[in-house]
């Protein structure tokens, strides 16, 4: 069809050139046909661009979610170790402190620990000076200072946070807001440390006030570089207008997640002396953030979403601050009447779990105390130990959230009171009220909507659910709500409706994956509860990029990220390719290539569609895989490291590795001793179920010690990975 029309137009054009006859009527007719042709062509071109954009998006998203899942697995692994493993005492102490519960001490004692008064502000400090009580002027001054890239002094940080913490502790779990007083309310989604976006929202929409109330729907921190500044601004305005600023907790308001995704690193980098204290205070404040906001009793705003069991009454009643990290099952609050369960196990002699602790970490003694210490020690008694030994063997070392729950509940059932025992040890997941409560919380913060009906565990992220349109109808109906506004997922246009416009996803971090990748959006809503959207994109450069250029740029970035994954799995990929090439011809079909890629990387990507971007050229439909890997992936590491396969495993797991480092680095000094490094490596290899040679680790440690001072600087070590990534050709 296309060819036919084209020929007619072409011949007509040529004819006119030769004869110089103007034939207006006929021309118009042919101009119409030419226009139709161009339209058809352009739409095809736009569709191909859209395909590329979508693939790029999928790459980023799948790598992001795989990372989250990884994190949860790692965390569960530690949990499992703490519950069941009997490592040598030094290893135990290395990781035990992340599971320590400290709220035994009353909040007043904590306030003393976090006190800012002893911190002096030197004359050399050129940042903003804050006075309290916080006023609108002071808060705007803070915004201006951050706009000019100033850093707030740790004294003021602790003072501001301390005041905000007092306020958070009296807020309910669910904020109830009404539009009648102020006419319009503004709702923002994920910000992820991207200060430019928050500033842009304030610029377009105005600063928060009683007349201009805001709801911030979680994920203020991690990934971006200015998480601290965003928090400080939000808390400052919260102090000035407690009824005008409403904060919901997100899944990233969680100290465990922060270890991996950059917030911990940011704070320690900006506040070298007091960073640890600031982090501890924030850890508590995160647990005190409200969980949801309801507007006019009709619109529910929550960070992740819902599940089929979501019950706002349960949410409203729970003690939300028990969940310092949403990833962690609730500690048991029941004490047995007899015996001091805090006593260490007999085999470990006098080991005290809090031997790292300062005074603030001491525990209040005694049974019957509501906030008594969480017991992580194994039980004495050989029968129980034997049972646990068996379970250890059966269960293996990496756990899904479900399995961990099961193990935790059945192991602790023998020394807890009636609730669990009633359900019997045969029930793999005894449904205690505590467990229900925990699930409600995780669902609120981690769930994602899906298109089909039903409700299933969110395997991709590792926490929360996927919920369908029927669940939306049921839950909204049950609570007499009309709309659910949530965030948690990046959307290209900053927002997206689903479930018959009953669920709105709102994302306020523009250019999240890469410059030009997506717009951010916020919502304004009046008493009619009809959402009005404002979209934006914060970078200067990307506004001048055409759609094509911005897709190209994002694509290159995604492919870079993907190449990192390929590099990390090089040996496995080669192995998988060779499996399809038993005669060692050096070539395999594209079909096998795609299968091998998915088998090793497990990212769920459409490999055949991506193949042209990955430089996969074939001859007679067959690919020279060795050459392909060579071209695509940089094979020489930047630093000479003794053992190539250790390097690869490390690189593949560098996020996990960094997380473990930071956990082990108890004093947040940024460096590990060789022994600690060895322990880290052993833990990681246990988690990954790989064997690592002790000598190889020792050699590796020596070669990484760039300063030759007997310790390994975490940042230097991670920097080595960044350099490797940069060296990968694009």
């Amino acid at each position: 069809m296309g060819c036919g029309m084209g020929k007619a137009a072409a011949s007509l054009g040529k004819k006119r050139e030769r004869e110089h006859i103007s034939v207006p009527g006929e021309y118009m007719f042919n101009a119409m046909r030419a226009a139709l042709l161009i339209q058809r062509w352009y739409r095809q071109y736009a569709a191909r661009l859209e395909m590329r954009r979508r693939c790029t998006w999928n790459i980023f998203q799948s790598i992001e979610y795989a990372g989250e899942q990884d994190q949860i697995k790692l965390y569960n692994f530690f949990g499992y170790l703490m519950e069941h493993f009997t490592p040598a005492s030094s290893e135990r102490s290395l990781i035990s402190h992340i599971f320590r519960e400290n709220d035994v001490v009353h909040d007043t004692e904590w306030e003393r620990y976090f006190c800012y008064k002893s911190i002096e502000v030197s004359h050399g400090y050129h940042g903003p000076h804050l006075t309290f009580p916080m006023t609108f002027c002071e808060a705007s001054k803070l915004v201006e200072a951050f706009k000019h890239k100033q850093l707030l002094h740790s004294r003021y940080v602790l003072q501001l946070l301390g005041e905000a913490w007092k306020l958070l502790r009296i807020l309910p779990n669910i904020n109830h807001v009404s539009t009648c007083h102020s006419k319009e309310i503004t709702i923002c989604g994920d910000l992820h440390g991207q200060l430019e976006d928050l500033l842009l929202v304030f610029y377009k929409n105005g600063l928060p006030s009683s007349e201009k109330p805001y709801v911030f729907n979680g994920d203020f921190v991690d990934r971006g570089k200015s998480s601290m500044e965003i928090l400080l601004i939000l808390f400052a305005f919260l102090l000035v207008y407690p009824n005008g600023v409403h904060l919901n907790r997100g899944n990233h308001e969680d100290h465990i997640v922060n270890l991996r995704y950059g917030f911990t690193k940011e704070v320690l980098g900006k506040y070298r002396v007091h960073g640890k204290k600031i982090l501890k205070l924030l850890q508590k404040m995160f647990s005190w953030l409200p969980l949801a906001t309801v507007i006019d009793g009709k619109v529910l705003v929550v960070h992740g979403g819902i599940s089929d069991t979501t019950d706002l009454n349960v949410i409203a009643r729970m003690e939300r601050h028990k969940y310092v990290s949403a990833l962690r099952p609730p500690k048991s609050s029941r004490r047995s009447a007899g015996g001091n369960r805090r006593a260490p196990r007999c085999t470990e002699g006098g080991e005290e779990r809090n031997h790292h602790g300062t005074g603030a970490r001491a525990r209040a003694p005694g049974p019957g105390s509501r906030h008594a210490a969480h017991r992580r020690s194994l039980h004495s008694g050989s029968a129980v130990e034997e049972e646990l030994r068996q379970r250890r063997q059966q269960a293996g070392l990496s756990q899904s959230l479900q399995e961990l729950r099961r193990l935790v509940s059945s192991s602790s059932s023998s020394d807890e009171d009636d609730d669990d025992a009633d359900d019997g040890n045969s029930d793999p997941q005894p449904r205690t009220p505590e467990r229900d409560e925990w699930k409600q919380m995780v669902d609120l913060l981690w769930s994602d909507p899906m298109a089909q009906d039903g409700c299933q565990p969110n395997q991709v992220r590792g926490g929360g659910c996927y919920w369908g349109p029927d669940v939306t109808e049921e839950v909204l109906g049950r609570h007499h709500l009309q709309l659910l506004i949530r965030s948690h997922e990046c959307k290209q246009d900053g927002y997206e409706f689903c479930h018959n416009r009953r669920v709105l996803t709102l994302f306020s971090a523009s250019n999240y994956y890469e410059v030009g990748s997506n717009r951010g959006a916020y919502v304004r809503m009046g008493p009619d509860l009809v959402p009005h959207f404002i979209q934006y994109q914060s970078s200067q450069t990307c506004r001048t990029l055409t759609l094509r250029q911005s897709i190209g740029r994002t694509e290159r970035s995604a492919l870079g990220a993907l190449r990192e994954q390929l590099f990390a799995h090089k040996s496995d990929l080669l192995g998988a390719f060779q499996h399809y090439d038993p005669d060692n011809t050096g070539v395999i079909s594209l079909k096998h290539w795609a299968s091998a890629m998915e088998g090793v990387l497990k990212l769920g990507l459409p490999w055949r569609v991506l193949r042209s971007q990955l430089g996969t050229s074939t001859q007679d439909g067959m690919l020279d895989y060795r050459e392909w890997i060579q071209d695509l992936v940089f094979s020489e590491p930047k630093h000479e490291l003794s053992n190539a396969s250790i390097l690869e495993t490390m690189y593949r797991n560098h996020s996990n590795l960094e997380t473990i480092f930071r956990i082990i680095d108890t004093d947040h000094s940024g460096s590990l001793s060789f022994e600690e490094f060895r322990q880290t490596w052993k833990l990681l290899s246990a988690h990954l179920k790989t064997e690592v040679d002790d000598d190889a680790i020792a050699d590796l440690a020596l070669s990484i010690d760039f300063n030759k001072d007997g310790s390994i600087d975490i940042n230097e070590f991670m920097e080595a990975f960044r350099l490797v990534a940069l060296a990968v050709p694009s």
Partner: protein
Amino acid sequence: MADDRERAEILVTGVHKRINDAFQVFDHDLNKTVDVREIGAIVRSLGCFPTEAELLDIIDEVEEPNGFICFERFLPTMSKILMENKFRPIPEDTLLTAFEVLDQQKKGHLEPNELTEYMRQGDEPFTQLEMEEMLSSAVEPDSNLIYYKDFVNMMVLDGER
């Protein structure tokens, strides 16, 4: 005969694979369904150049009552389209000639409002958004003109990826 059959089978499998891969890109929940609004992108990314009306015909054939399209129904329809080479591509020189037809005075370029007028007319006019996007790629920023020869070259090059 057997060879021919085998070749045909391989051909068909290849076609099925291509369709599956393109479908998968838009299948968010990995449940073998896509939103009906994505069909245009899928069909076109497989190398076809249908008009909007022709797309609507395809949708009529495969759409489920709930506004989704499931793979089972889409596959045979799309396979037929590919095997029959319906909606054949428009060759590059034809595209260039079409632009030349619109360029009455043979200037070698078009003004943005000229192109807009043509594109926003006819049976299947461009939407505001489509027009903006086309102009953003087509208009040379300094002169504010559309050098269509360069534009065609660029689009074709991108297409080869």
